[in-house]
C-alpha cells in the first residue's frame, strides 16, 4: 500500500501558473463540467427530470452519504480511513429503536442515535490514535463488530413504529422544496469547509496526511487530531443514521449495507487523494451532486440498482486510474 518513490529529478517551473489557469485546470472545474453534462443528458433522457419536486427528491440520494463523506474526506486527507461508517449507522439505528421501544420521545431518540455514532467513532479513534493500530484493520473489525451487535439485538426482526414527529428528519421540509436533509447537508458542507480550509485544525489535518512525523515534531498533537477525526466521522454517521432511520421509518440490521463503498467513492471522486495529504471539500460537494444526479437519472430510466453498483465500482476505480494513466504519458 505504500508508494515507492523512484529517484526522479523534480522539475521546478520558472514561474507559477496564473490563478486563472490553475482554477481552469483544477479537478473541481472538471467535476462542474461533468455535473453540467449529466444534468443536460438527464433532462434529454427523461421528461420528468426537470421538475423542482423531482429534483428535490433526487437530493435524498446523496444527502446522508455526503454528510459522512465530508468527515471521511478529512479522515482520508489525514491518511486514515474508516470502513465502519455503514455499520455505525446500523448500530445507531438499532440503539434508536431500543430507546423508541422503551417509550422515549423524538428528542431522546435522535440524541441516542447521534451519541451512539460519537461513541463508535471514539472506539475507532481510541484504537487508532491511542494504541497506534492501522485504521484499515481496526475499522474492518469494528465494521463486523458494530453491525454484529445490531444482529444480536434484532436477528431477523425489525424495529418499526417510530413516533410521527420523528419522520421530520428524513421526510420534512424546511421551506418550499428545501428538505430538512438538504438544509443539513448545506450546513454541514459549510461547517466542514470552514473547519478544513479556514482553521488551524484543518491545516494540521493536511500536515499529518503529508508527513505525520514532521507534524509531530512541529508541535501538532497528531494522536489527538486523529482521534477527533474518528469522533467527527462517528458523529456524522450518527446524524446520517437519524436521517436515514427517519426516512425509512424502520430499523433492520442490514440497514445501509455497502454504504461505506459509496461514501469512499464520493470522497475519491471529489479529488481527495486516497494516499492522504490533498483534497478539498468543494470537490466532495460536487462529487455528491454528480453521484446523486447519476443515481436519479438511472432511476428515471429504470436501470436496476445492481447495475448502478457496477457503475459505482467502475467510477471508483477509473477516477483514480485515469489521472494516473494520463500523468504517466
Amino acid at each position, binding site marked *: *500500500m*505504500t*508508494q*515507492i518513490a523512484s529517484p526522479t529529478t523534480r522539475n521546478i517551473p520558472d514561474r507559477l501558473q496564473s490563478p486563472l489557469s490553475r482554477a481552469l485546470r483544477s479537478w473541481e472545474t472538471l467535476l462542474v463540467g461533468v455535473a453540467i453534462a449529466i444534468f443536460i443528458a438527464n433532462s434529454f433522457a427523461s421528461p420528468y427530470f426537470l421538475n423542482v419536486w423531482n429534483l428535490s427528491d433526487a437530493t435524498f440520494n446523496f444527502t446522508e452519504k455526503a454528510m459522512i463523506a465530508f468527515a471521511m474526506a478529512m479522515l482520508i486527507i489525514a491518511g486514515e*480511513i474508516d470502513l465502519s461508517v455503514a455499520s455505525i449507522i446500523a448500530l445507531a439505528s438499532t440503539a434508536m429503536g431500543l430507546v423508541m421501544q422503551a417509550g422515549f420521545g423524538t428528542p431522546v431518540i435522535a440524541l441516542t442515535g447521534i451519541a451512539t455514532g460519537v461513541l463508535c467513532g471514539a472506539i475507532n479513534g481510541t*484504537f487508532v490514535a491511542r*494504541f*497506534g*493500530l*492501522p485504521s*484499515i*484493520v*481496526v475499522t*474492518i*473489525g*469494528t*465494521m*463486523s*463488530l*458494530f*453491525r*454484529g*451487535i445490531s*444482529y*444480536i439485538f434484532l*436477528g431477523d426482526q425489525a424495529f418499526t413504529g417510530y413516533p410521527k414527529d420523528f419522520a421530520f428528519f428524513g421526510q420534512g421540509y424546511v421551506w418550499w422544496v428545501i428538505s430538512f436533509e438538504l438544509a443539513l447537508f448545506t450546513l454541514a458542507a459549510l461547517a466542514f469547509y470552514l473547519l478544513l480550509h479556514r482553521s488551524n485544525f484543518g491545516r494540521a489535518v493536511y500536515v499529518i496526511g503529508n508527513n505525520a512525523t514532521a507534524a509531530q*515534531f512541529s508541535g501538532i498533537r497528531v494522536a489527538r487530531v486523529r482521534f477527533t477525526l474518528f469522533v467527527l466521522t462517528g458523529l456524522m454517521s450518527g446524524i446520517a443514521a437519524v436521517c436515514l432511520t427517519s426516512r425509512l421509518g424502520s430499523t433492520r440490521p442490514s440497514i445501509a449495507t*455497502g454504504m461505506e*463503498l459509496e461514501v*469512499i*467513492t464520493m470522497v*475519491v471522486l471529489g479529488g481527495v487523494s*486516497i*494516499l492522504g495529504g490533498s483534497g478539498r471539500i468543494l470537490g466532495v460537494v460536487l462529487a455528491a451532486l454528480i453521484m446523486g444526479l447519476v443515481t436519479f437519472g438511472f432511476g428515471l430510466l429504470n436501470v*436496476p440498482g*445492481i*447495475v448502478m*453498483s*457496477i457503475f*459505482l*465500482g*467502475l467510477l*471508483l*476505480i477509473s477516477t*483514480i*486510474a485515469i489521472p*494516473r*494513466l494520463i500523468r504517466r504519458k
Partner: protein
Amino acid sequence: MKTLMKSREALLAIVILLMTAAIALRFPAFVAPGNLVNVINDTAPLMILALGQMIVILTKCIDLSVTATLALTGMTAALLNGMGVPLPVILVTVIALGAALGAVNGLLVWKVGIPSIVVTLGTMTIYRSMIFLMTDGKWVNAHQMSDGFKALPRAVLLGFPVMSWIAFALIALFAVFMTRTALGRALYAVGGNPHAAVYAGINVGKTQFAAFVLSGALAGLTGYLWIARYAVAYVDVASGFELNVVAACVIGGISIAGGVGSVAGVILGAIFLGVIANALPVIGISPFWQMAISGLAIVIAVAFNATQSRIPGRLILKKVSA
C-alpha cells in the same frame, strides 16, 4: 520452552485446545471424532481462502474481493454444469477464471498503482453485480445440478471428505512454497522492506500481481467447492465472508503492514474461527452472535499483534504532559 511460549502459533494452538476442552466439559458430543471432522471440513473453505489472503497481505496489499470472486466462479461452475460441461473442464475453468479476476486486481495495483483496498472495494461490487447480470438474479438450486457435480467435495476418503483433503494438500503445498521457493521468499521480502526488495532484484509490483493471481485462483477453486457442497448458487453467496477471511489472517498473526506471518498461523486462525462458529449452536447461542464475535476477535488480535511487534525505540523527545 521460552521461544515456544512466545511463538504465536503455539499460543493460538493452546487457546484453541483450551476452548475446545471447555466446550467438551459441558458438551462431550462436540469432541466426538465425527463432529471434529465436520468442524475441520466446515472450515476448509476458510482455510483455502485465508492462504490466498495471507500472501496478498504479506505484500502489503489486501484483497476484499475474494468472496465476490468465489461467488462469481461458483455461479459460473453451476451454469456450466447446467449446460452439461464435464467436471474436469469446469474445475479448470473456475481456477482460470478466478486467476483472471485476481489478475485484474493485480494489474490495477501493479501497472496503475492504485491502492489495493480501493481496487478490491471496487471489484468486490463489480464481480458480485456481474453474477446478477449473468443470471438476472435467479438461483441455481440443488435439483439443477448434476449428481457428479455435487458429489466430489462430499466424497469421503480415509475419514475426511475430499474438500478437507484439498485444503490439506494446499496447506502442504503452501508450506513448501512459502519457505522453499524464490517467489515465496519474494512475497515476504516485498512486504518486509519494499526498498530492500527492489535492490535485491525483486520486482515489487510483479510480486504483488502474482499474489493477487494466486489468491484469485484459490478463490475460484473454493467457488466450485462452496457451490457444490451447499448445492445452491445465488448472487449473495458468501457475502461478507471476506471479513472472516481477513479475520483468520489477522488472528493467525499476519501483520497488516506486510512481511510477517506463517502458513501454520493462518490455518490456526481459521480453525479458531471455525471452532467458534461450530460451537455457538452447540452451546445454545444464536448464530446472530457470529458476526460480532469475529469482529471482536479481529480487533483483539490486531491489538495483540501490535503489542507483540512493538520495537522499543530510543526516546528522543520526552513527553511533558500525558
